[in-house]
């Protein structure tokens, strides 16, 4: 989980473009995204799709890690309630999502940056609509750029090291 500068580079380019990390369930939303592709439905290229076996596999750590490495938004796509391939997975996701949104809000990340959608395998259009909508919402919120913020926070450490070295030089003269 080292700091990867790639995302930072993208978000500091002249024209900022939101980056959305999307976790899609293998059985429904991912298949729907595939369908959207086959049917040539366009959607904004701002999304980076990660296929998981179930939306219930999305550990809240994945969401925080995505934000910490430069994501401006995170989208989770799972099967409709009652349709989970593993029976209960999406209900667990729903509960985690409610609590995680509150935690994120308390830590200064707007609730709209995390979205959960139920998208069945046949709903290619909903994939495209959801992504486009979310990209617009996140664009309106502006960049999150956490990896860059972390560097700014730690600039105060570098200043001390420089100062300490110069003082040591003085002390030794």
């Amino acid at each position, binding site marked *: 989980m080292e700091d990867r500068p790639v995302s930072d580079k993208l978000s500091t380019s002249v024209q900022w473009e939101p980056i959305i990390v999307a976790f899609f369930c293998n059985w429904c939303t991912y298949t729907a995204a595939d369908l959207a592709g086959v049917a040539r439905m366009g959607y904004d290229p701002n999304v980076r799709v990660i296929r998981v076996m179930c939306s219930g596999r999305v550990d809240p750590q994945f969401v925080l890690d995505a934000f910490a490495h430069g994501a401006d938004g995170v989208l989770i796509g799972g099967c409709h309630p009652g349709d989970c391939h593993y029976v209960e997975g999406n209900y667990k996701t*729903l*509960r985690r999502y409610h609590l995680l949104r*509150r935690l994120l809000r308390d830590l200064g990340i707007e609730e709209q940056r995390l979205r959960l959608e139920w998208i069945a395998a046949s709903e290619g259009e909903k994939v495209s609509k959801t992504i486009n909508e979310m990209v617009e919402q996140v664009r309106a919120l502006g960049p999150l750029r*956490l990896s860059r*913020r972390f560097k700014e926070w730690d600039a*105060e450490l570098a200043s001390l090291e420089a100062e*300490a070295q110069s003082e040591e030089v003085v002390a030794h003269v």
Partner: protein
Amino acid sequence: MSDKPKIAFYWCASCGGCEESIVDLAEDILEVAQAVDIVFWPVAMDFKRKDVEAMPDGAILATLVNGSIRTSEQEEMAHLLRRKSQILIAYGSCAHTGGVPSLANQFTREEILRYVYEEAPSVVNENRVRPQPRHGHNGTAVTLPEFRGLVRSLDQVVEVDYYLPGCPPTPKLLKQAVLTLLSGNLPPKGTVLAPDTAQCDQCPRKETKPVDLKITEFKRPHWTQIDPEKCFLAQGIICMGPATRSGCEAQCIRGNMPCTGCFGPTTRVRDQGAKILSALASSVNAREPEDIEKIMDGIVDPVGTFYRYSLAKSLLRAKVTR
């Protein structure tokens, strides 16, 4: 001075409980003191910073630093002790994961200083005087350390070799750690010197934890008659056990209080707060958003509960819009 291995203790942003835990070695401290020379321990012995500065680099076998890092002075001491020590150990939750002080990472430096020096009910400060890093007084300049914008764990400032977790670590773990250091048979760098299993694994109430917790309500411990035999989570009381490393011998649980997470996560978990959030939320017995919200509302302060000892080392590190 004798040629016994040299050990040092230092404290940064901490409450003093870690120092207390060293004294809690009781008679065992004699065994430790016999095997080593304690060359620096501000809370108990009269050595000064200049004494440390005078030592050659690497002269100290091991330094145990407790407390998180908030001021420039603590940073300087961390760098100095790093240089003088062969092994640097983060001792206690604050040095390990930021500890309770790092909950201040939810606020800006300005908010903290304004509250402490102007708004706190017991403060009288009509001229709104704030401490300044430099101040001229009768022709002499006096200085104070800089108050940093963030609270950090020790390893966010200098390289750390080992960690002793806990608020505070137990004397047993400390003794084991010192004996390990003296044996020369060192574990891999970065090791947390405590078992790598979850608290639940060593919990005396383990047998009473149902497979499916089906939580219908979160209760606060001080408003609840707590069953002294039954799993806290099965009683709807938030217990950090599932997301916390064992090694404390379940002291709080034996005192009929739930685990609050001071030993930090195991090696398989990167973010302790996210992990307990995941465990608790998935165990809630509700399927409709309104019902879920209603139960979750029973968790009054998610950040303060889930990251009580680890906000500095969490993935987000702080409230990001401070």
